[in-house]
């Protein structure tokens, strides 16, 4: 059974601060996807990383895939209240039948004015 642990579980910060969310596993994944989920809605894809060591930037968000493809991080620079939400990492294992995702436990971020 593959497990993905996210830390921290909860994070409350002030506007303008930087933060990093970690996603760790003992398993190797074909890809690592980061989602954001609002209450009562489905996960919305933010980014996919597929190569060990890969770094992707999405405005103030920086995503990194570990060299061994077992872990990932999400760094937010100068957080804003609009960044508030639940961030999920999901490790993918590709097979001929598709991409089976194992989701992390989630990080609930709250950015206050």
């Amino acid at each position, binding site marked *: 059974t593959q497990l993905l642990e996210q830390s921290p579980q909860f994070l409350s910060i002030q506007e303008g601060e930087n933060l990093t969310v970690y996603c760790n596993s003992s398993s190797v994944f*074909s*890809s690592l*996807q980061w*989602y954001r989920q609002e209450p*009562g*809605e*489905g*996960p*919305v*894809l933010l980014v*996919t990383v*597929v190569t060990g060591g890969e770094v992707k930037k999405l405005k103030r968000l920086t995503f990194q895939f570990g060299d061994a493809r077992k872990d990932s991080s999400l760094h937010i620079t100068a957080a804003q209240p609009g960044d508030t939400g639940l961030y*999920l990492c*999901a490790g*993918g294992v*590709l*097979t*001929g*039948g*598709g*991409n*089976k*995702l*194992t*989701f*992390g*436990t*989630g990080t609930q971020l709250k950015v206050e004015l």
Partner: protein
Amino acid sequence: EPEVTQTPSHQVTQMGQEVILRCVPISNHLYFYWYRQILGQKVEFLVSFYNNEISEKSEIFDDQFSVERPDGSNFTLKIRSTKLEDSAMYFCASSTDRAGWGTGELFFGEGSRLTVL
């Protein structure tokens, strides 16, 4: 922008009743999935479907569950005899327009909230 759509958004049912949740995946995608999320818990894989058959299923997906692609657009999840513990958000997802590997990015619908009384 193409999206995955799900109906109903919320269904309340009595224990033991049959429920069918419907999904319209992104039109040129080939792989389809159901996930569920019990309130306060993480998103869990149920089943993946490709080429008109189940390609993988989790231990949650027992004989009470079935999936079907009855026509070229819909993808359904049926729960034959619902239990209290089936109460959850059920998410449909689809991925890639190319058979084979690709990046496998999954795009999720808004979810169907199932409440079993």
